[in-house]
């Protein structure tokens, strides 16, 4: 290959392409060569491609003669490491350069003009092939791991899908653990991810529409939905918002998230993400749209409701009695998480009379030696907790957990011993910290921010200020929409029948309908009256 390159070094493609590539390299014009058609001459095509792919040392150009008709030269172009070498050498090169298709009659003569169709139809042992006649098509295919076959004398190319690269294997979900339920989570490869979804929903109604976003990265993004369940306007809106994006790179779904969000100025993210396959499948079945991005296991699901923060996939796998209790506990936890430090500060600063006397005396006794006001105390502990948590995440994994736990205990214990904070404060902050782990991680991020704000407000204006800020918070949440669906639905606007999947988890045979605003296309999930009955009472 190297020799070939050297010998062609003097050659240059036609002046327009040279100009286009040069302009592109200067950042002036973007890939105007993309729509250029191929030439019939292999030499010219290769020169052009060499020019475009100059200095891309991972691209392999392999020229060889066609076994059936030795005066036809073929060229393979692929990226080393993205294409499966075994497939390329065994099923493309071997069959083209050595073997004769066995069923071919002796007198069958291939002419130069037929060569392309012959190769396409009889010469390749590749499961999926395509054709292109533009430079852009070739470059896209090569860059995404396909192997392109050029045939001399034909202004077309065959795209062989012989991809095979190193990828992480499918593992447990890292962010949302369950005790009972599927463990698979998404990986970085888009194709693997779509296959995981397809395995859950074996139905042609599951649509997976792929488009590429990112002028430089050309990242594949799949818009996934179940036709007949999803509300058609929603799909149109998702496509519309995605097609508006003109950006150089999409490295993670977070890039898209911020560009298609309804409420860019809100601390709350109205687009949820998850790496759990079963969760995405359940979301799709409720009438949502999932946006899969190549290169990240995190899938965006829209529209998002605030109530998703207290729902875990496991709720639907375990028996409903206990998991209804868990739902209620999560709601209480949510409230504790948000207002526990704030009300602690408010009570100690302004409203001591509201505490039962015995409790007040005990706390006052603890705080006697503490030199700080309640606010400073709580902020110190909260900040420490946030630092420990951040450190726990960023630290190299083997030491991460141990250090964070030891740090928490040592700092908590030592600061109490040293008289810097009262034990009651440690309890409040620790409870708040633990409470935040009850929910899905990303959902708690805005609440963590607001918790600090509320604590400070409570320290200056007491419970009154706290109530006012909570009203403003609720107002803000009520004004949010995610892809047209009110964020607080089904609490606001109130839809009492649907609270059975929010406040508690109703038994499977009672969850007859999809959420009304999401699934209005196809409301009924199941037949009514499926509640198991003794045999005598069955109809």
């Amino acid at each position, binding site marked *: 290959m190297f020799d070939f390159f050297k010998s062609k070094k003097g050659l240059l493609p036609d002046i327009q392409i040279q100009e286009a590539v040069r302009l592109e390299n200067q950042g002036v014009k973007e890939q105007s060569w993309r729509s250029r058609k191929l030439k019939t001459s292999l030499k010219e095509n290769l020169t052009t491609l060499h020019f475009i792919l100059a200095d891309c040392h991972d691209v392999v150009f392999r020229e060889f003669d066609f076994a059936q008709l030795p005066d036809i030269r073929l060229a393979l172009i692929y990226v080393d490491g993205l294409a499966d070498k075994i497939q390329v050498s065994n099923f493309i090169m071997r069959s083209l350069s050595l073997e004769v298709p066995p069923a071919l009659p002796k007198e069958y003569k291939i002419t130069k003009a037929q060569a392309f169709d012959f190769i396409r139809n009889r010469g390749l042992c590749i499961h999926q092939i395509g054709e292109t006649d533009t430079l852009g098509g070739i470059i896209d295919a090569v860059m995404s791991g396909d192997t392109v076959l050029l045939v001399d004398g034909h202004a077309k190319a065959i795209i062989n899908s012989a991809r095979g690269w190193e990828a992480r294997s499918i593992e447990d979900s890292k962010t949302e653990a369950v005790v009972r339920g599927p463990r698979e989570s998404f990986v970085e490869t888009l194709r693997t991810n779509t296959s995981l979804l397809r395995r859950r929903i074996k139905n042609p109604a599951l649509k997976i529409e792929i488009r590429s976003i990112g002028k430089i990265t050309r990242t594949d993004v799949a818009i996934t939905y179940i036709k007949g369940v999803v509300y058609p306007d929603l799909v149109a809106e998702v496509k519309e918002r995605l097609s508006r994006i003109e950006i150089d790179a999409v490295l993670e779904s977070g890039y898209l998230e911020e560009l298609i969000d309804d409420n860019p100025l809100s601390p709350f993210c109205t687009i949820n993400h998850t790496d759990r396959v079963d969760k995405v499948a359940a979301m799709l079945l409720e009438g949502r749209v999932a946006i899969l991005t190549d290169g990240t296991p995190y899938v965006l699901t829209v529209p998002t409701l605030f109530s998703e923060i207290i729902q875990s996939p496991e709720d639907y796998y375990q028996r409903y009695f206990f998991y209804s209790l868990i739902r209620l506990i999560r709601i209480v936890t949510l409230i504790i998480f948000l207002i526990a430090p704030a009300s602690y500060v408010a009570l100690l600063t*302004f*409203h001591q*009379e*509201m*505490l*039962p006397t015995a409790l007040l005396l005990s706390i006052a006794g603890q705080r006697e030696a503490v030199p700080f006001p309640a606010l400073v105390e709580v902020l110190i502990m909260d900040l420490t907790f946030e630092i420990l948590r951040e450190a726990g995440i960023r630290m190299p994994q083997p030491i991460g957990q141990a250090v964070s736990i030891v740090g928490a205990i040592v700092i908590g214990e030592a600061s109490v011993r040293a008289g810097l904070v009262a034990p009651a404060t440690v309890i409040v902050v620790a409870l708040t910290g633990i409470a935040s782990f009850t929910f899905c991680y990303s959902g708690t991020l805005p609440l963590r921010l607001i918790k600090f704000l509320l604590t400070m407000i409570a320290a200056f*204006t*007491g*419970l*009154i*200020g706290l*109530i*006012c800020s909570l*009203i*403003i918070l*609720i*107002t*803000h949440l*009520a*004004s949010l929409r995610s892809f047209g669906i*009110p964020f*607080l639905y089904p*609490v*606001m*606007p*109130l839809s009492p029948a649907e609270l059975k999947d929010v406040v508690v988890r109703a038994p499977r045979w009672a969850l007859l309908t999809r959420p009304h605003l999401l699934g209005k296309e196809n409301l009924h999930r199941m037949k009514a009256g499926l509640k198991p009955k003794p045999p005598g009472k069955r109809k």
Partner: protein
Amino acid sequence: MIYATLILFIPQNTVAYAKQDAWLSFLIAFAGGVLISLVVINLSLCFPGQTLFEYLPLILGRWPGKIIGFFYVWLFIHFCTLVDREYCSTVVAAFMPETPLVVFLIHGTIMFAYITYCGLEVLARINQLFLPLNVSLLTILFVLATPEMKVVNILPVFDTGLLPLAKSTLTPLSWFGEIITLAVVIPYLAEQKNVYRLTIKALFFVLVLIEIATLGVLLVFGPTLTSSYLFPVLSGVKMINIANFIERLEIFPLIVWITSGTVKATLFFWAAALGSAQLFGLKDYRPLILPLAVIVTALGYLLHPSIIDLINFLTQAFPFYALTFEFIIPLLLLMVVLIKGSGKK
């Protein structure tokens, strides 16, 4: 969209007149409220899709209509200010006596300004959350206070005579009359047809809430004590002590107060903002929120030097002032419309 103003006020002055029959005067006031709302709804339905400020010029001609409209903007600003001030004074007097009043006025104004900025729909939504919350809190408090209640406290019934009863009805009637805001809200209702049913329902709901509070307080304290407390509901809740564990629940009536007061004041604020926008022919009322918020805060601070003055105003002057706008003017307008035959074709 359900419309329900939540009125939860200090039933003190009513009790002062009507003694143990205060709960009766609310019933009468409710009847009056229904009458007022019927006038307002009929008037509004003559001009479908238009607010009070839009059809006033149609009824009275351009300039007179605008002037009356201006009075209504003032009325809504004043109502909003009063609610704001009532709640702030309560907080200062009962909870945080050392904090200046203006701090809470600013709190309140920020709240209504923000909710108004988010729009009527958001207001209706948060009301959907607050209403059940308030009803359940009030009911729970009522139930918790039952050990302290004595039926003797509201006996004998019908002992006070008609005149005191009529006098005691005026203030609650003027509160029920705040349903005049419907004249601005009706065009924005989703279900125009059910407006009668919804309004009566909303009024009835308010009645039930007020009766819970009044009866609860009366049963606990009796008429004499009730009328001598500044905040009888709060004092009533202070009496609750169950097993030395459930006690000091004052925060809960406060939550009810703040949430319902916010919804109510915001509705007036919104009406004032929308009204002034429509009077001046603006497309959007949002630019007016900031100036109005400043006006409301300043008025709230300046109108009354003390809470005693505020309560005097509310009981002595307010009913006549408010009922003029709430009942007499709409009634006259309705008569003009019926005589002129203008409005709906």
